[in-house]
């Protein structure tokens, strides 16, 4: 029987299979950032060990950095100490760091692909659950905890049990106003926030093949939001074209050699998946979440579930809890709900194409004066492109300020927070209670739907603005 794309890469990286235990899995690239690495550096030092393969690690500061005045010292003392600790650790251990002020700095899952570090066939880990983003290139990429970061420091390997495999086919053309964020929000709403737990997911089908690399990254990014260990897409010409010429992409004869290898990375026709799901792209409409996990999503024109639709007592109780937190009522429509905040950013949607999408909607228009905005490019490079393409002028004319690169209000670690009780229409990946600040009410959407809210100050069907 043939092998899956996932299986081909995994099998090639198993150093040792422990009897009735995990595999010792070799890691090609290890990304680190300031929040989940300090305890791992301390741990390896306490053991008196060196870092085994420092050249395979790339560090950046993104989670806990300000998105204004990055040239100034970080005001928050704890944050500054954490970022300084990363600088010290990288210096001491010979790890490449793209810190604040460096032209390569940005959200770790934006800069990896942007710099050509992320490549097909690799195993990639990072102490961050959205590491699945890199799977868009046909790599096996997944988030790990800090103990596992220390394992990779110690040995360039981690102990990992091979997950089951799932393939999700999305066939057909996308409806007007629907982009890749809507595809993934639709999938998560369909299978729930735990529907892919224990699985590694491959996205396939004509709708996926038609997507750009940036759109594919948005999909793979949110694999974790349905519990998946990771998500991936087989590399194709779109992938190769994106990588070629980037800073760390293979060059010359090495490029030809790698390319031949990458072209073998697909699931064989007779490969077995533990689960297969088929989705018709025509069924997908612009999506929005209404609850406190990413599985609680619906079409922007839809109605929230009624109380009667829940049979299980615990589920009903949890739905009530979510509605209370969100200030919503069972059965209601979200259209027209006033929006106080719009966040465009995060490793899900902060790339140049996302800014182009938003600019295409707001061009020549003014934002609703009541809407507060946090508009945050994913990297210094994206910020530079925004200027080069003149998109900054479009935002400026609309009354919208563009900030500097970082994770920002996606997780509310820095000062970019949403006030309690206010709604935030957000292009990020999580709508958990308090995620964007204590009491903040997050609704996850695509960049297009976020742009619609920018202009109207309420939940709006983007399709009504497209005609």
């Amino acid at each position, binding site marked *: 029987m043939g092998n899956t794309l996932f299986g081909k890469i995994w099998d090639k990286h198993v150093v040792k299979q422990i009897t*009735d*235990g995990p595999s010792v899995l070799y890691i090609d690239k290890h990304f680190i950032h300031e929040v989940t690495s300090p305890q791992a550096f301390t741990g390896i030092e306490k053991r008196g060990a060196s870092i085994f393969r420092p050249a395979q690690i790339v560090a950046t500061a993104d989670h806990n950095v300000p998105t204004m005045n990055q040239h100034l010292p970080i005001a928050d003392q704890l944050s500054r100490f954490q970022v300084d600790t990363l600088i010290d650790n990288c210096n001491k251990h010979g790890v490449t760091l793209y810190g604040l002020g460096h032209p390569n700095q940005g959200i770790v899952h934006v800069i990896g692909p942007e710099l050509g570090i992320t490549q097909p066939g690799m195993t990639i880990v990072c102490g961050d659950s959205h590491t699945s983003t890199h799977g868009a290139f046909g790599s096996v990429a997944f988030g790990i*905890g800090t103990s596992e970061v220390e394992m990779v420091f110690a040995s360039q390997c981690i102990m990992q049990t091979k997950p089951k495999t799932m393939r999700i086919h999305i066939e057909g053309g996308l409806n007007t106003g629907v982009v890749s964020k809507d595809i993934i929000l639709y999938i998560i709403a369909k299978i729930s*926030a*735990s529907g892919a737990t224990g699985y590694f997911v491959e996205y396939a089908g004509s709708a996926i093949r038609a997507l750009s690399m940036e759109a594919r990254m948005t999909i793979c990014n949110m694999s974790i939001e349905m*519990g998946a260990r990771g998500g991936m897409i087989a590399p194709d010409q779109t992938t190769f074209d994106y990588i070629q010429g980037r800073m760390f992409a293979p060059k010359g004869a090495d490029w030809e050699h790698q390319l031949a290898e990458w072209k073998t990375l697909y699931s064989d026709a007779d490969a077995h998946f533990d689960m297969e799901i088929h989705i018709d792209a025509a069924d997908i409409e612009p999506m929005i979440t209404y609850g406190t*996990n990413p599985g609680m999503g619906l079409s922007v024109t839809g109605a929230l579930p009624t109380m009667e639709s829940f049979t299980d007592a615990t589920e009903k109780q949890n739905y009530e809890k979510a509605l209370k937190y969100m200030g919503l009522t069972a059965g209601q429509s979200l259209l027209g709900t006033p929006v106080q905040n719009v966040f465009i950013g995060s490793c899900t949607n902060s790339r140049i194409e996302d800014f182009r999408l938003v600019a295409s909607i707001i061009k020549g228009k003014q934002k609703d004066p009541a809407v507060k905005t946090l508009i945050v490019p994913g990297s210094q490079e994206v910020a530079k492109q925004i200027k080069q393409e003149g998109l900054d002028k479009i935002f400026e004319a609309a009354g919208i300020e563009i900030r500097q690169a970082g994770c920002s209000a996606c997780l509310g670690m820095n000062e970019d927070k949403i006030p309690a009780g206010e709604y935030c229409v957000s292009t990020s990946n999580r709508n*958990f209670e*308090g995620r964007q600040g*204590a009491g903040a009410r997050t609704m996850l959407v695509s960049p297009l739907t976020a742009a619609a809210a920018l202009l109207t100050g309420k939940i709006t069907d983007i399709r009504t603005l497209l005609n």
Partner: protein
Amino acid sequence: MQSLQNITSKFIPLRIENVDTDQIIPARFLKATTKDGFGKNLFRDWRYENDDETKPKADFVLNQAQYSGAILVAAKNFGCGSSREHAAWSILDYGFKVVVSSFFADIFKNNALNNGVLPVTVSDAFLQQIFAQGPNDTLSIDLAAQTITIDATGAFETFEISAYKKTCLLNGYDDIDYLLSMRDEIAAFEAK
């Protein structure tokens, strides 16, 4: 890592599904550079009104004096979301040694095991039986036998854990020492 032996303890019932790691430990507490002291911020925003330790929320189970113990019992999909190991450190630092649920998120499960906290997966039906017990009832976990027992009724289930991880927990071994010992083998793998 501390070894984990058999445990008999009262438990704290958390009847909430999809408990994500942002609830277990909110992001604003991730600015620390050590693993210590996270317990006081465990479930911070569910525990306190407006982040004020003098205003515990009476309806949250950690604030209800009748409940105590080294076992946390939660509804399905516990530990979803962010990979932050700070969630496992918070649970351990608060004093829990075991978390019971009908379903765990993958990354949390690994993080717990790597810190000597045992995740015990039980059936939905058994979880409901546990939730039906009173605050003075105890659960017994026998790691070697892989069983969890409701002591009041004698009802028990076996749970799964790999033989490798069981040995690690019982003896307090950790993966990092093992991997350090494999460096030559890994270098040979790289050379292939």
